[in-house]
């Protein structure tokens, strides 16, 4: 992909938009930004992939994107939601995974291209604090739609796991 100078500015600006629930990871590293298009007559349109259909943060993120771009660049800003193809945790970048882990959230294990992962068959989630793989799922659901709740059987710390989707 060839990125021209203007687009790079937009990408850099979007990299400063953090997920409201996980304030250490940008929406770019979460793989939510699908494309940037120039609008006729100036300005930009950003294609955003929602993570979960019912995630209440989606509209908030769209607002943050507009505010950030207006602050960093001139011209009108539009946001379009891109449903297809659906967002997947496979789109989270290596940087994003590291940031999740540093924040205390175990990043998704495996790839959803492996169907067994989607159905929960493969689950050896290492503890983001001590790295031990002896962990136990406490709850299939967590504080936000994208997370499940685990506890480490080695260091005994509870932690969030970013579900594979």
């Amino acid at each position: 992909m060839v990125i021209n100078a203007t687009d790079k500015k937009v990408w850099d600006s979007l990299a400063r938009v953090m997920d409201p629930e996980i304030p250490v990871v940008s929406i770019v590293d979460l793989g939510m930004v699908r494309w940037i298009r120039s609008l006729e007559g100036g300005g930009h349109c950003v294609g955003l992939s929602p993570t979960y259909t019912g995630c209440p943060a989606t509209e908030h993120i769209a607002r943050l994107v507009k505010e950030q771009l207006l602050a960093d660049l001139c011209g009108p800003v539009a946001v379009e939601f891109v449903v297809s193809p659906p967002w997947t945790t496979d789109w989270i970048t290596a940087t994003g995974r590291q940031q999740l882990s540093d924040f205390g959230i175990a990043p998704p294990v495996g790839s959803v291209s492996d169907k067994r992962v989607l159905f929960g068959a493969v689950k050896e989630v290492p503890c983001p604090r001590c790295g031990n793989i002896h962990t136990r799922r406490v709850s299939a659901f967590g504080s936000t739609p994208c997370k499940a709740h685990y506890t480490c059987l080695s260091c005994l710390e509870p932690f969030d796991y970013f579900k594979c989707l």
Partner: protein
Amino acid sequence: MKLDTCDLAAYATMRADDVLILGQRLSAWCGHGPVLEQDIALTNIALDLIGQARAYYQLAAHGSSDGQTEDTLAYLRDAHEFKNHLLVELPNGHWGDTLMRQFLFDTYNFYLLEALTKSSAPELSGLAAKAIKEVSYHAQYSAEWVIRLGDGTEESHSRMQSALDILWPYTDELFEDTSLDVAVHALQVGPLPSALRADWLAKVSEVLQMATLTVPSLDGYHQRGGLHGKHTEHLGILLAEMQFLPRAYPTAQW
């Protein structure tokens, strides 16, 4: 032949009604779950279902000539205009009743969405590809609970069997082919519900067997009417609560 915009809107509305009503039912568990984790689980599932309902309603409202929006579709229709299956409007009952209903519906919803991912309407196939990932997770969760409680204590087993026996007559309606389904199927937009029954029954039977529960007979009386706007008395009460605010304060904004 091309699908009429009205037909696509009616079809999307029918799909939305099921998940909106079930989402509303599940959200009533908020603050009442047996333990915090399970309270969070049901409200998370409710959130996913209401999110899916919004996506369907937005599709239905898109290009609407009579000014419908996702909000008017959800909040300003009366019970007879809702086309959800009777199963989803039934009261929550106890934890086992709720999880049994969820299991029967999730399994159906999974096969329905699987068929919709092949829809010739790109708006629907895109939505289904997204929703099926969430619903796979729901189906796994509700099946785990059915197994745990069915194959649990004598008390939990008998309560789950009775939940199943009460809900079973409402499952036949999931596979009823309405004239709209037939029209939509002719254009490869959606499946014939009757074609989903074999997969559903195989999966449901497999899980119920693991749960040591007896699969009721397919013969016998079946409850129907939801798809034609003929509902149980429970729907009106649910809507009265859900629709109160936008009806009482029509210009209310967040």
